[in-house]
């Protein structure tokens, strides 16, 4: 079996905010309804942006965050994740967001994805990222939907006309 060289995604230095979605053309996210749980669709021009956008969707889903988040208590968490394919990497990434928030009693406010490396399908995928967190204070950062796990149900990471698209359903 031959192995394709990894596709190294360019580093994004300034992660866009949710409010910027309209100016970014294909980049953005949407929350999908589900009878018991909840879903999300994220899209971006490249894989690093896609995983950042999924984090933005997760943040919107799980917390109400005002513009005046106090800097005190905010934290970042660096993560490196590996999986056997992109879908598995999305599963690990979303679950990383769940546990990072739960264990720090904080809201995920966003993420900066340094790189997403993908070998040939099924031969491995790797993500290096930083998750940004702010503690729930009941004023500037308030709890919203409680996400308990990501699922593999209808989970997909696929190329689209304008880049990449992720669909995921989360257990709440």
């Amino acid at each position, binding site marked *: 079996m031959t192995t394709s060289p990894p596709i190294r995604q360019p580093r994004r230095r300034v992660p866009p905010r949710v409010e910027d979605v309209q100016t970014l053309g294909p980049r953005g996210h*949407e*929350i*999908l*309804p*589900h*009878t*018991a*749980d*909840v*879903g999300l*669709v994220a*899209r971006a021009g490249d894989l690093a942006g896609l995983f950042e956008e999924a984090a933005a969707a997760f943040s919107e889903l799980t917390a109400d965050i005002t513009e005046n988040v106090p800097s005190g208590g905010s934290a970042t968490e660096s993560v490196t994740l590996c*999986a*056997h*394919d*992109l*879908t*598995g990497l999305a*599963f*690990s990434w979303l*679950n990383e967001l769940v*546990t990072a*928030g*739960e*264990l720090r*009693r904080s809201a995920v406010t966003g993420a900066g994805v340094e790189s997403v490396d*993908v070998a*040939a*399908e*099924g031969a491995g995928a790797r993500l290096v990222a930083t998750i940004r967190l702010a503690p729930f204070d009941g004023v500037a950062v308030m*709890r919203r*939907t*409680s996400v*308990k*796990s*990501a*699922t*593999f*149900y*209808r*989970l*997909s*990471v*696929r*190329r*689209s006309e304008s880049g990449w698209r992720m*669909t995921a*359903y989360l*257990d*709440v």
Partner: protein
Amino acid sequence: MSRKGPGRPIRSPAGGTTPEPTLEPGRPSRPIRLEQIDPYRWRIPRDERRGMRVDGIVFADERLIAPLRTDPALEQVANVATLPGIVGASLAMPDVHWGYGFPVGGVAAMQVDGGVVSPGGIGFDINCGVRLLRSALVASDVRSRVEPLADALFAAIPSGVGARSGQRLARRDLDEAMRKGARWAVERGSGWSRDLDRTEERGEMAGAIPADVSGRAHERGADQLGTLGSGNHFVEVGVVDRVFEPSAATALGLEAGLVTVMIHCGSRGLGHQVCTDHLASMDAAVARAGIVLPDRQLACAPLGSPEASAYLAAMAAAANFAWANRQLIGGAVRAAFERVFGAPAERLGLELVYDLSHNVARIEQHDVAGRQMALCVHRKGATRAFPPGHPDVPAEYRAIGQPVLIPGDMGRCSYVAVGAPQAMELTFGSSCHGAGRSLSRHAAVRLLRGVDVGGQLGAQGIVVRAERRDLLAEEASPAYKDVEAVVEVSANAGLIRSVARLRPLIVVKG
């Protein structure tokens, strides 16, 4: 973004062409064919979807089946029917609704020899279940102190997402809780030893190996014992407003007018992490083996394989964590009543009626075509409903059958039932676990925008305490099926016998 239609083919990362799955919520990729068997059962024939090894059987009447026809839950029933070693049929209880992998309300029994275990068939909240206490109090006793009691319960039981107990357990203590389950809590003074006699499996599932539970799961669970969690979890003080079968009600200590307490919760972050960890490892193993599943959430491993054995050992540990959790919450409920009523819990008659699990897999003996077989019965949002005389029913209830606790929604009612003989023939001794959702949380919030749900409940005489007020809309009555219809179908299909109905007085939501 268009969410209509099946989507056009796109290039996969590896360059292959694969159809993009439909993203339209609430719609299967194409309608599932249903054949009516009798007034309470519908068949999804095994030729309906490629790879189905058995039929799907859905328990529903005309009212309940109508909205299901366009619901992805039926596709999920069909998907489960493709799993290796499935016996009989892929079953859906009357409260079935759209889940992930398995539908919620799904039951599937796999041959131990040649079958698989699928963590998605148990769900993330391992041993999510229901505990019911009764009391010697009557509704007027509670109504006279309803606000202090609601406050005392809300203060005593940490609730909400990421709720903490205030005490972080050392690894050694947490492992002991995962081995001993409810007994661990009783040994620490929470509850009475007779509680264990009225808990499914005495609240201690055999085969638990805490070493198969990851460090991250330990970390998530270390300070969550004794906490309710969020979502549809609750503590509800109710009153028996109707008795259908007096002899069974008497055996359960229930009579019209008596106050009850129902607790619904599970294994918190620890159980979720166990499922996540083992799902990931099984998904990788499935990929290595080149097995194609209709839904990756159905990732599974052959029973007897290292992956399956490790999962079952960790699942049992998480199940015991959940039993310890409900035992502790039961203790906190008793303590809250003691403070408000100024009398010991024993004098208040706060006895456990029963505690059951509705998210777990177990190896059970069942009659299959006249032959006794060991089966791995997956119940995801489904309750055991063993009939009178079954050896796994506690001795004091063996004459009436296993208690089946069926919470409804917070504005209507809940039911107490017992298992019936036909459940063994039709559902591997299983029945519904609740009302079942009918609306998504977002749809419920949209529907009830501007409605004071708490005020409406108050007008009905139901006092509510919730971590978040917006949760009330997500969990309001219109978000759920009518539990009376669900119970009626379960009873008419011969799965259960209704014993009593409970009306809520106080609801504490996570």
